[in-house]
């Protein structure tokens, strides 16, 4: 038997075991009703965002001034706003904008945070001290203040909003990965990899980081909720996504002036934010319960 074939045979049971473990986790997650409700909300939100161009019944940017501040009706299911734009269409496109902000900000935070946390935890010494002190400084500001500071320097707009929301989430990922790497790097399987001649990069990427995945996935899910709240808050203040782009926080901000005559314009975007945040929180909690071995027992 060739060496390649022997290697493949050895790897096959490992793959089967990994698939078995995944199926096991999936079954446990499915048994968690709250997590499934959360997953359902998140799936609906993602579908709405992806299919937005097909689903919108009206142009979300241009409205008819003759139809301004109309209540819910057969034509406009959620009514119209101060410029006669269909609220439902703006909510649907707003989902797309929000998802875009969440994904970019969380990926940015994840990539930078995981890199810094892994480097600090694995290499230790002065580099670790430096990285962790930098994270302490970022954590010294309430996250919305840090995001406001970044907006003050970079200016308003969608891209800067993503950067601001992303940067304020970096310390969470860095801390989690660092503590996981610190506890894992002393374990036998890492020592074995080192004894077999594995280099630093190989040990980090093949052995340590895959074992940090569970807390990172949980953190990323929960961060999607936090980023949505931060980003919509900044847009509400007028410092995030700028009009006429439909964004839920910005929609709420505009609706403030019409609270007495058309409360529905302010109610719907707030409800949308809350439902999506509830979805991510429930799903994140469910993932934590499923992936944390201490909670499994």
């Amino acid at each position, binding site marked *: 038997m060739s060496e390649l074939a022997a290697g493949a045979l050895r790897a096959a049971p490992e793959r089967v075991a990994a698939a078995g473990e995944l199926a096991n986790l999936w079954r446990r997650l499915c048994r968690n009703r709250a997590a499934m409700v959360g997953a359902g909300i998140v799936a609906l939100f993602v579908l709405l965002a992806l299919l937005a161009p097909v689903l919108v019944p009206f142009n979300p940017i241009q409205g008819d001034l003759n139809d301004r501040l109309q209540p819910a009706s057969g034509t406009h299911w959620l009514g119209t706003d101060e410029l006669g734009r269909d609220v439902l269409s703006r909510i649907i496109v707003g989902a797309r904008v929000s998802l875009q902000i969440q994904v970019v900000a969380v990926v940015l935070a994840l990539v930078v945070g995981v890199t810094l946390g892994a480097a600090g935890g694995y290499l230790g010494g002065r580099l670790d001290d430096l990285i962790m002190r930098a994270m302490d*400084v970022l954590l*010294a*500001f*309430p996250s919305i203040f840090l995001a406001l*500071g970044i907006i003050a320097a970079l200016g308003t707009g969608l891209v800067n909003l993503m950067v601001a929301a992303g940067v304020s989430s970096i310390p969470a990922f860095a801390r989690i990965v660092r503590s996981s790497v610190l506890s894992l790097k002393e374990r036998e399987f890492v020592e074995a990899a080192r004894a077999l001649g594995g280099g630093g990069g190989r040990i980090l990427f093949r052995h340590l980081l895959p074992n940090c995945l569970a807390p990172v996935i949980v953190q990323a899910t929960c961060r999607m909720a936090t980023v949505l709240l931060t980003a919509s808050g900044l847009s509400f203040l007028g410092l995030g996504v700028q009009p006429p782009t439909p964004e839920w926080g910005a929609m709420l901000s505009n609706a403030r002036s019409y*609270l007495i005559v058309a409360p529905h314009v302010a109610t719907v975007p707030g409800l949308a934010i809350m439902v999506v*945040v509830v979805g991510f929180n429930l799903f994140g909690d469910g993932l934590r319960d499923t992936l944390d071995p201490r909670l499994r027992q």
Partner: protein
Amino acid sequence: MLRYILRRIFMLVPVLFGVTLVSFSLLHLVPGDPAEVLGGQEATKEDVERIRREYGLDRPLAVQYLRFAANAVRGDFGVSIQSRHPVRDLLLQRLAFTLQLSLASILVASAVGLLAGVVSSTRPYSLFDATSMLGALFGISMPIFWLGLLLILVFAVRLHWLPSGGTGTLLHLILPAIALGGASAAVIARMTRASMLEVVQQDYIRTARAKGHREGVVILRHALKNAMIPILTVFGLEFGSMLGGAVLTETVFSLPGIGRLLVEGIFARDYPVVQGAMILVGTTFVLVNLLTDVAYAFFDPRIRYE
């Protein structure tokens, strides 16, 4: 204990250094010449040169930072570009409102959160428990600014019970304190329930019951007292996070606090105000966290001996 406090204060030094560095960097991250940015759109060439000399912007960056940090330590954040008043005075005027709002909110959050958490833990998996924990989930997930608008709509616009914004009386504080304290009440309720459920399973609680104490005494004197340690940490963290939430609450209810000042400063490109507000809030946040750690160590000796 004193050694622990001194060690924690010593650890603050690099963080506060970082806070000033981040605030200093803001002006230098803005595209363009910092002197022109500080001068505003109407500044003449002479004005820009004067500002450059006055603020030492013609010096090396390290020298500029040292001067900025030394001034900040003395509480001198320069002069507001917009109002021409010293930034320190503006901050002090606004700080009182933000602290008042944060204190009122933590009171609301503690009262609601502790009550809901304790009652839920005494009746786990009951209808009350399920309802209050569902309420806590919504409390955590609800945007502060939306809750604020809903409160205005119901209690100010429809019922005319409370003012919709502004300052003056205690009544003006009620709606903002509920809006800002809502999320924290939810966090405190969840933490109280979890902490109490852990404590009520301990042997000393069984002993207290066996001795014939009334259930109220067991819960309040024996269980809650011991469950308070982790809850105390949450109080500190939530008080700190309220400084962040105050930005949105102050905007919704038109309150003249630090958060509102920061937002106005960003719109007006009034960088001395933005820098001053960032340093003040960062320092307050760090100090609140320090106090929380010290209180935690005071109540739980295991922490200070670690």
